[in-house]
């Protein structure tokens, strides 16, 4: 039996199945964590429709768009990394995960410039809002903007850490074609971060 099988599992396959299901359940909790924010977004967008679209138009759409391309591409490289380890090419997986982390960094840097832009224009949540939109809509939009993108950026950071650790371990040969579930799980997490951004991008930037 493979050395990675814990004593209470009958086989590596069964263990992998359990770990995938566990990961999916964890991802479900992540989805619901964001849901509270999306629900708040839905309600306030309904209440302050005009203010929200005005504020949305003031965002740096090109940065959000480029970030979407970056994140989707990083998801692709992670998926290719999994494909590599399945074929037993550890080094290639390590490299592809490294590339994904680089793309993640690009995302964070762009995000940083975007935040800087908002700070300079006093487009900030709640009492700190000094933008042009009258009423509560503007400050509410930016409260939600910072909460959603902030929580997402936090997840990107965690995802980069996870990719880093798992990528390094793959490079060092801890996983192989038969035992690669941790690589797969790290990938799942990163894809979820991408998945959430796919919804954040139109909600905040486009509509």
């Amino acid at each position, binding site marked *: 039996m493979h050395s990675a099988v*814990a*004593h*209470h*599992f009958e086989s590596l396959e*069964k263990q992998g*199945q*359990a770990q995938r*299901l*566990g990961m999916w*359940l*964890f991802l*479900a*909790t*992540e989805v*619901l*964590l*964001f*849901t*509270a*924010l999306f*629900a*708040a977004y839905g*309600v*306030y967008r309904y*209440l*302050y429709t005009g203010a929200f679209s005005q504020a949305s138009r003031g965002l740096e759409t090109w940065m959000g768009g480029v970030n979407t391309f970056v994140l989707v591409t990083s998801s692709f490289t992670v998926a290719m990394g999994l494909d590599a380890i399945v074929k037993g090419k550890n080094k290639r997986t390590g490299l592809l995960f490294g590339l994904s982390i680089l793309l993640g960094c690009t995302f964070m840097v762009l995000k940083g410039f975007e935040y800087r832009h908002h700070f300079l224009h006093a487009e900030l*949540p*709640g*009492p700190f809002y000094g933008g042009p939109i009258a*009423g*509560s*809509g503007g*400050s*509410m939009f930016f*409260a*939600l903007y*910072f*909460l959603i993108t902030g929580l997402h950026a936090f997840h990107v950071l965690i995802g980069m850490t996870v990719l880093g650790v798992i990528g390094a371990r793959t490079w060092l040969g801890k996983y192989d074609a038969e035992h690669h579930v941790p690589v797969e799980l790290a990938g799942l997490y990163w894809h979820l971060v991408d998945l959430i951004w796919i919804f954040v991008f139109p909600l905040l930037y486009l509509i």
Partner: protein
Amino acid sequence: MSQHLESSPPVYAERNYLNTPATGLKSWLTTLDHKRIGVMFLIATLFFFAVGGLFAMLIRIELLTPGPTIMDAMTYNRLFTLHGVVMIFLFMIPAIPSGFGNFLLPIMVGAKDVAFPRLNLLSFYIYLLGAVIALGGMIYGGADTGWTFYTPYSTTTTTKVVPILLGAFILGFSSILTGLNFIVTVHTLRAPGITWNKLPLFVWSIYGTSVIQILATPVLGMTLLLVAIEHAFGWGIFDPGRGGDPVLFQHFFWFYSHPAVYIMVLPAMAVISEVVCAFSHKNIFGYKAVAYSSLGIAFVGFFTWGHHLFTSGQSAFNAGIFGVLSMFVGIFTAIKIFNWVATMYRGSISFKTPFLYFIGFLFFLFFGGMTGIALATVSLDIHWQDTYFVVAHFHFIMVGSTIMAFLAALHYWWPKITGRMYNERWGLVGATLVVSGFVFTFLPQFLLGNEGMPRRYFNYPERFQALNVASTAGASVLGIGFLIILIYILVSLKYGPVAGPNPWGSRGYEWLTPSPPPLENFDVLPAFERGPHEYHELPGSESAAPGAGTSHA
């Protein structure tokens, strides 16, 4: 072959989880064994139950007279907040799932351990961390918001609400990890022979509970975080002065906290389904109906949260939706009640302590449930909302039934956990006191609510005093009952007679292994040929009915 194995586990397992691999404190604190983690959860939750109970007694004493009796209004407001927080987050939510669930669920599915033992231990330490932070907040000053943390009161109060929020937030992770572990365990670690239709009903209910824990807890976490952000920076998500909607907070809060009621009640139902079969010595009436109704509660329970908001400014349209949906959740409970009662039909009922708690449970679940339905009929709720009627209702349904089931579980599985029997006669005394004490504490509160006394009142008009005194008198009976239980159960640890593998003659899978169970639950894995609730004679076997104390098959 398996029949043979089932019939001959040793009377007291010399090498069991209590002494293998070691007995030292360190071996307990670093253990990955689900049974030890379960026992540690039980000890911790019992400690917090005592703390919360002490708060409850202080509150009842304070309410003996209008105006200050033994404390001032500020202390009182903090006390009922802490009572709620401790009892809900530190006792009721983890007690049965994390305590008994951890101990029993893997045995009941024939597994050696839960799917992720490390996560399981992590869950326990997260629980301790959350408890310490919350307790720290209480000692450091405590919050006065009520456990519901309604905005904008919770975002403007000057009391120490942030550590308590943070504590509850952290406790949520413990809850999530436990639920995640159980679901994966049930899906992937069932022993050969245990199909979905042969799962013990305990497992079905705990499974339903886990689904709620996973899907609802993150929303509470985010909500509490938003309140904390609001309290610290005033971003205004729930602040009406900045265009926020305080009712939205209530939506989010009850999206978790209504299903959380089922996090408390479903495990109680899990226990009772086992107890009623074991002590009626009969198969469960309608296995599938009872099993699927657990999932039904877990699912429909998510669609009813708005019945907490009938007076809050929510729209009449939404009140209608939530009102109708609330009626459907009652149905699943009704199915269970009917099936439990029908299980006794043509049974062989033995009136042991756990069965007495079953009777108490049935009473509290029925009347707690029916008053719940009454509260969901919208117009009646308008009168009762935020009065003592609601207090009595939820103490019946989630505290009464949960504590009955918790005590039933404690007595029913005590021989399995410790290998020793408690004193049955004292057990009956304790059960009688607890059940009657509980009734006398909360029956007057239903009437107080009818009369119109709002909850969370430090002071009250004198016409409410008689019923308040009656309630406090009941509470003291309840307190004495708990003390008696505590004493005889501790005594039995040392002086109780050795119980044997199956003192109740139960068919549950956990009784197929010695008491206390060995390290990996079964020395030799049984074939699990009979269902866990099948008591009838099999054609061809000479003596199919096991008597108490033996386990011939």
